[in-house]
């Protein structure tokens, strides 16, 4: 075997540590739960659990819709226009990634106080703050990858600016925009820190896990954790697959 291959094999073994590290806990909790299937079934009949799951799905989906309606136009402007302060705008979009999520909760509560405390609006605002940059950035990248000449030609063929956007640029950027939206959705589903501070109620599944753990311990918080994992990962995989199909067509 040539020397180069040895190095690649070594790197591959070394690198698989991370893959195993991610897969191991997921596999472990799933297998452990399978040993107690009746707890899982009980959890699925628990009204608290079902309501919390509904709340999580509802709020994170609403977050994605809001992120898309504001993020796609912003992404388009960032991709197509040069203007003073563009770098600053880009920086602002990326800021939420560096702020600890508990701090996000404190900031939102300080700014909007009782108007968002313990409400659906509060949950959605917390989710939007921490997850919107994914949609904006991937929209921008999606539009950047669309040759501007396509829009120019569409215009000369008789399309207005808006028509050219909807018939040419948007469909071509869509796979990228949607994969950003999935990241926004996934990030929203997994948000805890900010929600904990802004809106403990109405209770979302991720908060319920925490509550069960603190009140009843590890065993009790496990079934709902498993449900969350399975739900999130399946939706994630399904959406990625659908977008992959669309992008190929």
């Amino acid at each position, binding site marked *: 075997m040539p020397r180069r291959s040895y190095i690649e094999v070594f790197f591959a073994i070394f690198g698989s540590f991370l893959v195993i590290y991610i897969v191991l806990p997921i596999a472990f909790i799933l297998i452990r739960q399978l040993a107690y299937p009746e707890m899982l079934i009980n959890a699925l009949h628990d009204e608290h659990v079902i309501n919390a799951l509904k709340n999580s799905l509802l709020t994170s989906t609403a977050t994605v819709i809001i992120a898309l309606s504001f993020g796609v136009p912003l992404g388009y402007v960032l991709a197509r226009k040069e203007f003073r302060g563009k770098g600053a705008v880009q920086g602002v979009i990326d800021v939420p990634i560096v702020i600890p999520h508990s701090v996000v909760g404190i900031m939102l509560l300080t700014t909007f106080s009782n108007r968002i405390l313990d409400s659906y609006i509060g949950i959605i605002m917390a989710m939007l703050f921490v997850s919107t940059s994914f949609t904006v950035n991937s929209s921008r990248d999606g539009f950047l990858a669309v*040759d501007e*000449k*396509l829009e*120019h*030609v*569409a*215009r*000369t*063929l*008789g*399309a*207005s*600016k808006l*028509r050219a956007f909807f*018939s*040419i640029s948007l*469909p*071509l950027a869509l796979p990228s925009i949607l994969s950003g939206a999935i990241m926004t959705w996934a990030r929203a589903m997994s948000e805890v820190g900010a929600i904990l501070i802004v809106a403990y109620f109405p209770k979302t599944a991720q908060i319920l896990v925490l509550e069960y753990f603190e009140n009843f311990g590890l065993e009790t918080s496990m079934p709902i954790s498993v449900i969350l994992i399975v739900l999130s990962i399946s939706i994630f995989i399904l959406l990625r697959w659908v977008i992959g199909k669309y992008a190929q067509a």
Partner: protein
Amino acid sequence: MLKLEKVSKSWTEFEIKNICLEIGDTEYLTILGPSGAGKTLFLELIAGIYTPDSGRILMDGKDITSLPPEKRNLAYIPQNYALFPHLTVYDNIAYGLKLRKIPNVRKEVEEIAKILGISHLLHRKPKTLSGGESQRVAIARALVIKPKLLLLDEPFSNLDIQTRTRLINEMRKLKSQLRFSALHVTHSLEEAIDLGDTVGIMLDGELVQIGEVREVFSRPVNDRVAKFLGFDNIFEGVAEGRILKVDGISIKLPAEAKGRVRIGIRPESILVSKNIIHSENVFKAKVTAFEDIGAVVRLTLKTGDIEFRAFVTRSFLFEMGMKSGMEVYIGFNTSDVYVFL
């Protein structure tokens, strides 16, 4: 039908300076210029994608300077063709027709596809097409909306020579069949010669010369144009009657001239031989350099203080046993000497 009045625009690293131009109905104007001369910006100004900093653009007497592209009734084919990758060939061609709410889209698409020989491609996606096929689809998409003016940006530069020749011939036929005016920018001399009724030379954003192809190629207005058109030998000297004195040598001119004059001679017009040549202008010269430029070799030949450039074939070089420093004869006819004004 199209008229430009002193159009100027500066955009990123490109600049268009003070362009005046007129294109008649069904005229095919080729704009020839090196890369970076601003040819694409020039087309996009006419297309309405950018607005000029100053000047006016008129179409059939109407000022269209600030009209958006969709209201100009012209078609634009960019260099990379810009076929819409998510649409089939059929939908690409039908795009402009659907926007115009034309009743029989299918019939129109099928008709133009037949003319361009792409009927069998209508269901395909652009990424499955060859370069020549893509080009035909782009032309079909542009012509199906019956534009008054077709703008083409280096349309044949990405194609192999056979496909290019075939498409150039077809363009000529289409032009007379469908009666549109065309503005075609290119850096290729062959394309300009083959296509244009009229050719314009664009250098550094300026339209330096415009006229009939034959005239522009034989009588460049200045030595910048001459250099670009391949006059490698440009000399300046003092003329007296039909004789030009350049750094101690005398060159016979095709016509009488007086005072400081510049002349140009194409490198392919210069004969090179070991033996004496019978020609109106003959000089003894020393070979000082060889440069391999593909099919031919460019020789640098020094006579007195001036250097001539001449093309010879590689086999000729080999047969002659040509070496650096060798003495040869060079010659050219006075009819191959161009006097620039």
